[in-house]
């Protein structure tokens, strides 16, 4: 029978806590699923104004860019948990991969990778406020410029239908359950 002394037991507990506590703290920073919304906007200079469906982000688009027309090309919504990303098939053969990493102080840290086909075009680690917006742009599409608006946030509870709620649900192959509406 192995005799365990009090000192050895205390040392084992201290060692266990020293190892487990940081991991526990780290694990606590990841909560439930993160809702990721992606809107693909086509900016052109055709003087048609703002697409009605883009009204919630219209002022930001007009402040940030200088196109006379903004049209919603596709809308995607998916959920992702920390450490497990979700992917969205975007117009023009682009794929957007979003992987939340942790949620803390009402901010969401995540990795965003934009693929052109299978080739990674850009990888970035960003920290967004809950329901904050990040725009990716620069890709030509049709007769204009494609602007990708990425919004991440904790799922709204009790708010039936956010402003950008999609109508059509079409899961993509690479994501757990994103919904897609393509114009």
């Amino acid at each position, binding site marked *: 029978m192995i005799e365990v002394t009090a*000192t050895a037991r205390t040392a084992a507990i201290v060692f266990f*806590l*020293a190892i487990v506590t940081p991991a526990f703290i*780290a694990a606590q920073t990841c909560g439930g699923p993160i809702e990721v919304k992606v809107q693909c906007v086509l900016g052109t200079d055709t003087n048609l104004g703002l697409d009605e469906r883009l009204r919630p982000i219209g002022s930001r688009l007009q402040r940030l860019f200088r196109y006379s027309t903004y049209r919603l090309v596709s809308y995607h919504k998916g959920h992702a948990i920390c450490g497990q990303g979700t992917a969205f098939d975007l117009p023009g053969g682009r794929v957007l991969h979003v992987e939340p990493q942790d949620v803390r102080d009402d901010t969401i840290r995540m990795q965003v990778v934009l693929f052109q086909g299978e080739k990674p*075009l850009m990888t970035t680690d960003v920290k*967004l406020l809950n329901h*904050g917006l*990040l725009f990716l742009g620069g890709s030509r599409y049709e007769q204009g410029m494609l602007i990708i608006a990425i919004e991440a946030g904790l799922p709204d509870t009790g708010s039936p239908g956010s402003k950008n709620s999609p109508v059509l649900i079409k899961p993509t192959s690479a994501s757990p359950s994103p919904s897609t509406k393509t114009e």
Partner: protein
Amino acid sequence: MADCAEVVRLLGAFRDGELESEQVELVARHLAHCAQCERTLGEICRLGEELRAAVGEPCLEGFVERVMSRIEHTYVPLRLRLWRRIASFDWRLPVAVTSASLAAALASVAAFMVLTRPAVDLRFASSSTFVRGEDIAEQPRAFQLPQAGEIGSRGQVVISRLETSLRHVAVWSEPEANTTVIWLPEDAETDD
């Protein structure tokens, strides 16, 4: 040759074997020729024996046990008892284990802090000025992000890493709109 008065003073020590060798020789030579001093020495020896006989030797049986018993029953102040316990404790193992645990904890915390280090707030432009990719100087593939004083204090997107296969990229933020743009000009050359 020494006189009797001098030798008599040394007889007690002579008998007890406490004299130096020269004095022993001196006393012994004198005694060989002086009967009176020899008698005096005999009286000293006899007196010593009588004194030893008169005073009984104390009994030491159980003496150590009795002393230890009294020590054990003597009241010792708490502070002194604690100090003795601390002083007698073998600290090597606990100190080694605690040090190892602290080192492991510090390493874990350091790793945690490095992995989740504060990101850098990008504010290439704080207005709605359009920045074209061509306007940005050529950058390495992994873009060096500028340091900023206030990290995310105004709600912008905070970018801690930005890598792209494109040669040029523009990043700017609009604080009033709480938005940040990463502009990847499609017509920019790629490295590969």
